[in-house]
């Protein structure tokens, strides 16, 4: 039957787009084109403020028009028609082109930021407004990132407008991106404070627990660069969150309180990444690779942090080159290549959460708590599963949800970020994300679709 895959590739019907929708796509395209031209030419075209206003207006207008035609003019409900027919969402030409563009942007951002001069100039007025500093490549990146989350967040919310869990979750994740990862850091910068992110903690933000000093960025630098002595409080908050906030909140709500409600990486994945969620690998071998990989990264960041502290106590006498070697390798391999270039650049190829699934050390810790001690689980509704596979297909974390649901077993997986899409796409109302402490240690014991137990009939 493998040859019959052609079924899903041959879509004889053109994707129907209305005139307004084409207009919306055109507006978005012009907006992106202006950014690309600015990037390529190396300087802002005309007055940066005017150009920036045009770029954003076109993007916003285009998104609204597209969403209106794509979702709002149709009955509420699941909108996955043609996900595996479209080149953009099923690794066709469009997908690969977008992948190369995003990956290229990350490579330039990390290693050749001088080539972003044009964009930096373009965003200068905005940077002066928000931070009272001239723009740099990271401000450009942060602004593009946040506006993408907001615009695609709107698209996502309208796509799932019948689902209040999705609406509230999307409101939360976009709020944290805008407030905690953009406005507050910008404001802090304006106040000449370190641009601290309240929504990231060690180990995802490994610098918040590294000693810091002359050789690498860390606690000492954050404290030293704070002109109002706020640095100590920031560090205190991040340590509190790393060691108390994370386990306590995960006990009550599962990993989702962070990964799909607060985290900025999660925010991008849930909004910009949503059209690509079906591309995650569901095979057992991918799961094995995932467990090996993500825990290796966790060990890596822990060892790096420990070495830096040991070195700091020994005043660099013994471990200087070793700990710095670890630190630099981590920053390059994990901080840049994995989380940025692969994690986001490869959205259209690997799906939206490959960093969260295979790399993020924060996700690894949250996952351990979720599996070992949490009230959270996805409940399977008795024997109602029809093994259709929508849940597994649309799981961005590549969890084979169906393999549990068809046995009537509740789902507790360390990688589950609680996005709730499995529950949304289930055509038979089988899955529910929920919390209870009553059966916390036996959450997955029962198999309800099993019919017979010990020779007696268990109904169902």
């Amino acid at each position, binding site marked *: *039957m*493998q040859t*019959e*895959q052609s*079924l*899903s590739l*041959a*879509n*004889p*019907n053109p994707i*129907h787009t209305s005139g307004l929708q084409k207009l919306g796509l055109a507006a978005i395209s012009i907006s992106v084109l202006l950014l690309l031209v600015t990037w390529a030419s190396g300087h802002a075209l005309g007055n940066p403020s005017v150009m920036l206003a045009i770029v954003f207006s076109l993007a916003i207008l285009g998104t609204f028009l597209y969403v209106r035609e794509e979702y709002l003019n149709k*009955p*509420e*409900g699941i909108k*996955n*028609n*043609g996900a*595996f*027919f*479209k080149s953009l969402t099923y690794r066709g030409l469009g997908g690969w082109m977008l992948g190369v563009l995003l990956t290229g942007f990350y490579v330039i951002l990390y290693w050749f930021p001088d080539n972003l001069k044009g964009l930096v100039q373009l965003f200068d007025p905005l940077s002066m407004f928000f931070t009272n500093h001239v723009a740099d490549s990271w401000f450009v990146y942060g602004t593009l990132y946040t506006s993408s989350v907001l615009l695609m967040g709107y698209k996502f919310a309208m796509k799932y407008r*019948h*689902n*209040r*869990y999705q*609406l509230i979750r999307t409101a939360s994740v976009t709020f944290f991106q805008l407030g905690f990862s953009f406005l507050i850091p910008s404001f802090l910068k304006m106040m000449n404070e370190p641009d601290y992110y309240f929504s990231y903690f060690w180990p995802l933000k490994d610098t918040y627990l590294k000693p810091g000093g002359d050789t690498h960025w860390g606690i000492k630098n954050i404290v030293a660069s704070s002109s109002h002595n706020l640095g100590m409080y920031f560090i205190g908050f991040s340590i509190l969150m790393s060691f108390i906030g994370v386990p306590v909140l995960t006990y009550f709500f599962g990993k989702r309180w962070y990964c799909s409600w607060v985290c900025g990486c999660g925010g991008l994945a849930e909004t910009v990444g949503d059209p690509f969620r079906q591309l995650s690998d569901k*095979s*057992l071998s991918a799961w094995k690779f995932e467990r090996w990989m993500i825990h290796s990264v966790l060990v890596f960041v822990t060892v790096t942090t420990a070495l830096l502290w040991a070195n700091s106590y020994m005043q660099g006498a013994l471990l200087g080159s070793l700990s710095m070697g670890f630190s630099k390798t981590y920053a390059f391999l994990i901080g840049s290549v994995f989380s940025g270039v692969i994690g986001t650049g490869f959205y259209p190829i690997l799906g939206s959460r490959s960093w969260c699934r295979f790399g993020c050390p924060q996700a690894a810790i949250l996952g351990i708590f979720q599996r070992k001690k949490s009230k959270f689980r996805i*409940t399977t*509704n*008795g*024997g*109602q599963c*029809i*093994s*259709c*596979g*929508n849940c597994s*297909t649309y799981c961005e974390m590549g969890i084979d949800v*169906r393999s549990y649901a068809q046995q009537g077993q509740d789902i507790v997986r360390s990688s589950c970020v609680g996005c*709730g899409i499995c*529950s*949304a796409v289930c*055509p*038979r*109302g089988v899955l*529910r*994300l*929920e919390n*209870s*402490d*009553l059966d916390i240690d036996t959450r997955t014991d029962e198999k*309800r*679709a*099993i*019919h*017979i137990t010990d*020779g007696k*009939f268990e*109904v*169902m």
Partner: protein
Amino acid sequence: MKVAIIGNGIAGITAARWLRKLDDNVEITVISEEGEYFFSRTALMYVYMGHMRQQDIQPYEPWFWDKNRIQLLRGRVQSIDFAKKSMQITTADTAKLFSYDKLIIATGSKSNKFGWKGQDLDGVHGLYHYQDLEAMVRHTEGLQRAVVVGGGLIGIEMAEMFHSRHIPVTFLVREKSFWNLILPPEESAMINRHIIEHGFDLRLENELGEILDENGDGKADAVILKSGEKINCGFVGLTVGVSPNIDFVKNTDLKVNRGVVVNEFLETSVPDVYAIGDCVEIEKPQPGRRPIEAIWYTGRMMGETVAYTILNKKIKYNPGIWFNSAKFLDIEYQVYGDIQAQLPDNQSTLYWEHADGKKAIRISFDKNTEGVVGFNLMGIRYRHEVCEKWIKDKTPIETVLQNLGLANFDPEFFTEYENEIVQVYNKTFNKNLQLKTKRGLSAAIKFLKQITH
């Protein structure tokens, strides 16, 4: 022991899996003409609609079968010699004899055809087998209109499939209202409205007269309705029900009627031959159950049951309290217990419908005992186990209503409508009941496990 299973649908595969779970040594062979690997039949529509690929509707990865030592044989069973316990099988390149110790027949259904003129033309297909999906795909290119005949679960799926590819659909429903032999009038009317909202050309009380091949190329190009109206179309979907797929065992020693006749142990008239799933006709069905129940869930339960029986842990097939589910375009449907299109004389029913006309709750109860008998849900999800326990215990309607939140299975933050149906009861019976329990897992666990504190 060598067990041969004919058919790799949910019934046959469940039997194979349980045989392996319960016994490490039994030799298991699953024979199927339809496809190499087990797939979810109910999910065929999603492949056509581009929600999933063909491999996504296969619940097990290809290595699963080797690992569990379940041999898959692609071929067609031509005949069975029950006395010699041997089958004649043709595969793509050979014909061979295959012997067994125990045989499970799980050949499923085939789409009904009622002798219409033109029913065997190219472009006239049901939707049951993988090959039906392929036929739909083959005929999609350049298709200007599809006519779907039959207002049931498969009909509305087929109509939705074409609609997803922007192909206009005419949907012929013989009855006055969609699926009204199963759905009570209000729910049925809801689905009529929803079908029209999606822009299908819904023709109620309309039947197919004949299918035409006007240009004589062997392909359907129009239908004539019984009303005389002619509709041009390039595809005719015949979704007027299914019946057991048992032609290959007709006129043998095996007792068949509409389906393969089995007793309560799923044993056929021939020793060591069992039958499960859609192809079965149960000789003495349990009260309130039909002899042929061609649904996913019964196939799965029979598959598990027969594995026990074959391994000498003989057990009666007992499907328990009826449940089923479907999705009509965007409206999910769940049913638990006894909900009938025509309210029986001994039952009362409570019905609440949301102002948007897309959500409804129905609870029926016995007039005399006041015990609850069934739940019908449209656009709202209820917990299977909770509803089942109430029905099994014949819990009085007033107790059920006051604790109705226990059953709610909608996602977090969704509006809860249990109070609305309590008010329907209060208004109807001039009572003043209050909803005591809201939605929540802990309360449901306490209820199901009888934890009191």
